[in-house]
């Protein structure tokens, strides 16, 4: 059976190449888009999730880290520190803004998430230093390595915003949000640089607890007891941030994934169908020789499975091989190929093969073996 399927495919090599190419393109598109989504998903929440705080505290209505509209008075931190379950409280000032390297064209400004933290506690500060010093001093900033790569900013450069500037003294890692990166300054520098009024306002408070297993229970209790204040676990806040940044992309991504699937299915389906129609007489011969419809169905299904398997190998291979190159060329092209996604794509390809074989199979049922007796 496999012999007939394989030979039928190999005799029409151009058709086979087209069919495999169509499935491969579909698998590649699905693979690269899924990997891109996974890469973004991983990067966008990475910093928030990695900050070793048990609870993030913001003002009511705060939805995420990047577009934080949270404003809390410094006194709220004092009140939180009085709670018996709380071990430490660290204030954070977070503000999205655009900056440029001194001397660069204003059009070359780039997005940053400026984070002012308390150097005494280091909570909310750089996750890991790659180069230079930390904590930064007054008027100094630690940038993320992604900022250095994408915008050519080096230690010693000055980053300018209006009439103010910050000197880069260190490079850290783990603060890439793809569309912008975290840059760290001290609370005092943040107050001055952002001209905060009043100076005591904070964006978040980061709490560590004596018993981290009580985090969720405490968050619920505090939300009920302190109206106007929102409490999030690190994971919750990371997910909210991901949702804010990627939530609008996901529906579009799903549409493109469906289109890619349909393209693969259409190409595989049309080529398998035309091959079956062209071989109708031969299928008639097999019927006349006593082969059942079931046998013929399996021949077509095997052709479809072979085509799809080859397409999957080419498409998945291209995804795994080309994704890192794309990432090097376009820094925002952050990809993360997960084996679970590859399994999902395998299942999608299998589904493609089965559906592509369905219409030709229906056609086979109508082949009349008596026709092979007509010269």
């Amino acid at each position, binding site marked *: 059976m496999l012999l007939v399927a394989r030979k039928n495919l190999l005799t029409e090599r151009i058709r086979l190449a087209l069919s495999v190419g169509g499935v491969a393109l579909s698998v590649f598109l699905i693979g690269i888009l899924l990997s891109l989504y996974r890469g973004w998903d991983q990067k966008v929440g990475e910093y928030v999730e990695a900050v070793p705080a048990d609870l993030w505290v913001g003002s009511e209505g705060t939805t995420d880290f990047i577009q934080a509209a949270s404003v809390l008075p410094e006194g709220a931190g004092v009140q939180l520190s009085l709670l018996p379950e709380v071990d430490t409280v660290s204030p954070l000032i977070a503000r999205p803004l655009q900056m440029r390297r001194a001397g660069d064209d204003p059009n070359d400004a780039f997005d940053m998430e400026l984070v002012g933290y308390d150097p005494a506690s280091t909570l909310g500060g750089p996750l890991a230093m790659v180069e230079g010093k930390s904590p930064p001093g007054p008027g100094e900033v630690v940038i993320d390595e992604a900022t250095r790569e994408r915008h050519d900013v080096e230690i010693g450069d000055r980053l300018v915003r209006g009439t103010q500037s910050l000197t880069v003294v260190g490079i850290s890692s783990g603060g890439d949000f793809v569309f912008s990166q975290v840059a760290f300054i001290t609370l005092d520098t943040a107050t001055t640089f952002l001209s905060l009024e009043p100076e005591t306002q904070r964006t978040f408070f980061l709490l560590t607890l004596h018993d981290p297993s009580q985090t969720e229970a405490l968050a619920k209790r505090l939300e009920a007891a302190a109206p106007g204040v929102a409490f999030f676990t690190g994971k919750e806040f990371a997910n909210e941030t991901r949702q804010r940044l990627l939530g609008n992309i996901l529906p579009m991504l799903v549409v493109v994934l469906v289109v890619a699937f349909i393209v693969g299915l259409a190409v595989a389906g049309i080529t398998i169908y035309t091959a079956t129609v062209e071989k109708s007489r031969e299928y008639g011969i097999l019927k006349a*020789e*006593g082969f059942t419809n079931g046998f013929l169905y399996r021949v077509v299904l095997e052709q479809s499975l072979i085509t799809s398997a080859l397409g999957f190998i080419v498409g998945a291979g291209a995804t795994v091989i080309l994704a890192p190159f794309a990432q090097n060329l376009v820094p925002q092209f952050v990809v993360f190929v997960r084996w679970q996604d590859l399994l999902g794509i395998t299942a999608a390809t299998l589904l493609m093969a089965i559906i592509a074989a369905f219409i030709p199979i229906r056609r086979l049922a109508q082949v009349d073996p008596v026709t092979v007796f007509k*010269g």
Partner: protein
Amino acid sequence: MPTPEVILRMEGVTKVYGSGETAVTALVDASLEAHTGEVILVMGPSGSGKTTLLTIAGALLRPTRGQVHICGTNITGMNEGHLAAIRREMVGFVYQSFNLLEALTVLENVRLVASDRGSNGAIHRDRAKEMLETLGLGHRLNSLPKQLSDGEKQRVAIARALAKTPALMLADEPTANLDAKRGHEVMELLRQKALGMDKAVVIVSHDHRIRDVADRVFWLEDGRLQSES
């Protein structure tokens, strides 16, 4: 000498295509018996019902009336699944236009049809190879059908039909695409091999030159079958 066994028995077979005013009667009350070691030739002009007779005898078409028995089994009321099994196990076809699978080699064409469920692939291969060698095609095992002459193609078709080890062989205009010399050679070969293996052979043809290979000759005209003897 053992008594010849009845392989094919057709009793009062009538075939009508369509219904009502458009009904066409292709075969009328045809009866025929073919025994082991016997070659029957059914002759007749185009449109006389020869192919209809052959396809009913070959379990491809059900008669409108009458009975068909192959190797003692009444196949008249069988469903398509059972008819396919009868064709697979008991009937070998030789077609006018050879009907080889173009993508398969000569050996693969024969081997595919020789295979039956549950038996060993190596046995099919050996049986197919042996059959092709006895038909003088040992040097063509790995050739594709398009690389063969028409005479060679028809010999492959005969090998394919014989490789199934069927009790009944049915040939539809087997010499129509061959010149006189090759046509005669192929028919002699078919007779020799089929009879050597105790098959019953029914040939339908309008080629008078092959009358001498037949033990009995029937004439079919306007759907009516008559013995010439």
